[in-house]
């Protein structure tokens, strides 16, 4: 349903952030994209959703196809009309609006208010915390609360595919579990997911397929369960040693040589 072919992204006409990235997301699947800081994960999402432009970036080569429509460098609002919603990093709530108004804006394309009401209720049942906060000015909510709101707002549009950037960012452990429950629920309802996540354990628990990115290139990909067994993934993303135990942060060796994939 979503396909990236050899995508290159350039910022400010000079910084090449993606260097030929290809990936495929099939309908109903959840695909996870893992990678270190600055690997280019968020850039990939922005390239798909068309929000690159606001940061002076462009897709300078390759193509992105959503359901047969090429969407590279398309206006962000048009991409949404094609059924893809991007939940951006950075907790960008509409700060002066209340939590509920944020949700309504999320559902602004809903044809009638009965349907809107239904979707609101759906969000509130899945995330009861948001119901408590509905009249709170979203800009004043805590980091985690805002994160929840963003997920709820994306749900309001009931898109075919949600591209979501680090949903678990800043959430308490219990909340992470809850959010992933919600995602699983949505997935079971047929939503496709493109998931960028640092919490790799959680991501791999829901994903069908995963890509690993370094330095603007895909360095590894495979079915999620296969990747979860990979030694390197275990060490760098899941934080477990080869023997399968979690190592203590206190015991980190000082100048450990870092292992990098060579793309």
């Amino acid at each position, binding site marked *: 349903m979503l396909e990236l072919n050899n995508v290159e992204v350039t910022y400010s006409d000079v910084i090449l952030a993606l260097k030929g990235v290809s990936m495929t997301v099939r309908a109903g699947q959840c695909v996870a994209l893992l990678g270190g800081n600055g690997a280019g994960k968020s850039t990939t999402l922005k390239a798909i959703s068309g929000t690159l432009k606001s940061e002076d970036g462009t897709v300078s080569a390759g193509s992105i196809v959503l359901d047969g429509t090429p969407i590279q460098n398309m206006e*962000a609002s048009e991409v949404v009309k094609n059924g893809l919603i991007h939940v951006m990093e950075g907790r960008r709530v*509409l700060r*002066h609006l209340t939590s509920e108004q944020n949700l*309504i*804006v*999320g559902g602004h394309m809903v044809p009638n208010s009965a349907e809107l009401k239904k979707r609101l209720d759906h969000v509130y049942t899945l995330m009861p915390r948001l119901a408590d906060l509905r009249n709170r*000015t979203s800009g*004043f909510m805590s980091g985690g609360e805002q994160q929840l709101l963003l997920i709820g707002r994306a749900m309001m*549009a009931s898109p075919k595919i949600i591209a979501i950037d680090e949903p678990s960012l800043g959430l308490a452990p219990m909340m992470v579990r809850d959010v992933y429950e919600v995602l699983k629920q949505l997935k079971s309802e047929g939503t496709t997911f493109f998931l960028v996540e640092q919490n790799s354990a959680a991501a791999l628990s829901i994903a069908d397929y995963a890509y690993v990115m370094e330095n603007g290139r895909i360095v590894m990909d495979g079915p999620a369960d296969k990747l979860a067994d990979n030694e390197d993934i275990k060490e760098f993303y899941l934080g477990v040693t080869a023997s399968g135990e979690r190592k203590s942060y206190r015991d980190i060796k000082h100048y450990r040589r870092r292992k990098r994939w060579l793309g």
Partner: protein
Amino acid sequence: MVYFINDIITGALIGLLYSLVAMGFVVIYRASKVFNFAQGELVIIGGFIVWFTTMQAGLSLWLSIPLSLVLAGLVGYAIERIFLTKLIGESVFSMVMVTVGLLILLRGLVLLVFGPAVRPFPIIFPLKPLFLGDMLIPMNLLIGGIITIVAAVGLSWFFNRTRSGLRMTAVAEDHVVASSMGISVKGSIAVAWVLGAILSTIGAMIFLSGKSLTFLASDIGFAALPVALFAGLESIGGLILAGIIIGIAQSLTTNYLDPLIGGSLGSVVPYIIMLAILLIRPTGLFGWRTIERV
């Protein structure tokens, strides 16, 4: 005493005219976060369109007024298309600065198209004032005041209660987020400019009815500014109150204080009031508070 009350009423009505022009600012601001410094120029353009359709083309008022509003809307749309669309995604600061450039440019353009002469403006509202006993109330201001209040109520309902209004608010909050949720930022800004241009044209009709039209008319943009800030840039309803207060203060100053000091305190009094209010409430009476969160 009667005269005093009359001065208050006239002042309030003039204040409402300021509110109407300020509404142009606020609508554009509410829907795009762009503060349009060229608002006064929109008033002139509106004025020239009205002048053109009536005095030049010789259409009757019933025809020329709606036609002027349509044309003004088109001009607003064109300005948005030519100058602002390309800047979506750029910082709000650059967009605002474009309106500064626009101010210089529109002046030149109007000069080019309409020439520099002083023009008689059609009499749109009856010249004869309304007499209430000893009081006399200019018709254009009275009708203008009513229009202003109706417009304010309507627009404030639109922005606060309808989903399209909410959409525009979302655009003003964050262009990128709005477009990532499928809201057309272009569309929203275009609507704002169309509305802004139309409001300015109505303002021009009330302001200039039966008077003359020159470049100086753009000064009303700067006279209306304090009203917009006093109310707070997001508040359409608040404009009414702010306009009335500033209008009355100005009227009383011009009529009772200026003769004493032999100067023109009346023209700076709105700014002084605005400064005072902003020092107490930095975002105006009803403006959104700045949200700072770490």
